[in-house]
């Protein structure tokens, strides 16, 4: 196994919110019939979390599960465990029409920490960030790139994007969090 490194290896920026790259994060795309018992069972085994409803993200002992579309979930787990979880989930789903893929190394993850974390993201996205509460997930865009975000708590936003645009996303977030750029 090669030495896994995250896109920006934990780079961080202290603005009026702190922006930091989250480091190695396990991410799994699971597609299938979200109403099926088989999918719920595989999700539970992988993360300990219950199935999220539309626009939700749920949390379990081993990870989080985000609702990405009517037939797609994002499992957020320990990076080192991701490959084994994919294998177990694929086996558990068996012949059921579904897809489980380890996308950990295809993504970059950022945390925006501070009371104004919603505001920093609001500068970059058309989504209404003021309505976002912990437990909700929104897929949208930031400037020119697709991104998804949710809140871990009221002052911590987690933003996920493609690894190929990791630097671009970090630069956007840094710019949005620059001291002096406060809106409220």
């Amino acid at each position, binding site marked *: 196994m090669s030495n896994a490194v995250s896109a920006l290896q934990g780079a961080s920026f202290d603005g009026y919110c702190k922006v930091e790259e989250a480091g190695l994060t396990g991410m799994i795309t699971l597609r299938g019939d979200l109403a099926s018992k088989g999918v719920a069972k595989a999700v539970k085994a992988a993360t300990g979390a219950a199935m999220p409803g*539309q*626009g939700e993200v749920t949390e379990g002992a081993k990870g989080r599960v985000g609702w990405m*579309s009517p037939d*797609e979930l994002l499992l957020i787990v320990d990076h080192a465990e991701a490959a084994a979880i994919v294998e177990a989930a694929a086996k558990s789903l068996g012949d059921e029409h579904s897809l489980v893929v380890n996308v950990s190394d295809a993504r970059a993850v950022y945390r925006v920490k501070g009371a104004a974390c919603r505001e920093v993201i609001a500068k970059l996205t*058309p*989504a209404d960030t003021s309505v976002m509460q912990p437990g909700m997930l929104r*897929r*949208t865009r930031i400037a020119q790139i697709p991104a998804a975000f949710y809140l871990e708590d009221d002052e911590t936003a987690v933003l996920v994007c493609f690894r190929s645009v990791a630097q671009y996303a970090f630069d956007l977030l840094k710019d949005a969090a620059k001291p002096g750029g406060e809106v409220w």
Partner: protein
Amino acid sequence: MLILECPYCGVMADETDLHGGGEAHLKRFGPGSSDDEFETYLFHRKNPKGVHFERWRHVSGCGKWFHAARNTMTLEVYATYSAQTTEPPQDVIDAVKAKHPDWEGYK
């Protein structure tokens, strides 16, 4: 700014979260059709000033295609609805008619 509710995500998606797909409910004319039918299918599009039915894709969200009934003049949105239909559902027709009793109807 046009804002449509994605029927799959239930979120209000701004136009820049979406990708327009042109006129909705086209019937495809492919191999075996007449030249006139094929030309109409490929090139002839409605361009109404008023009530219009369109396809949209929630491109930076769920990625799904859906339909929207809206007004090209006022930008009022009557409804958005599933892509899994070949014509506007009755409740969408009713929503348009409620606002425009003299609307000539779909087609």
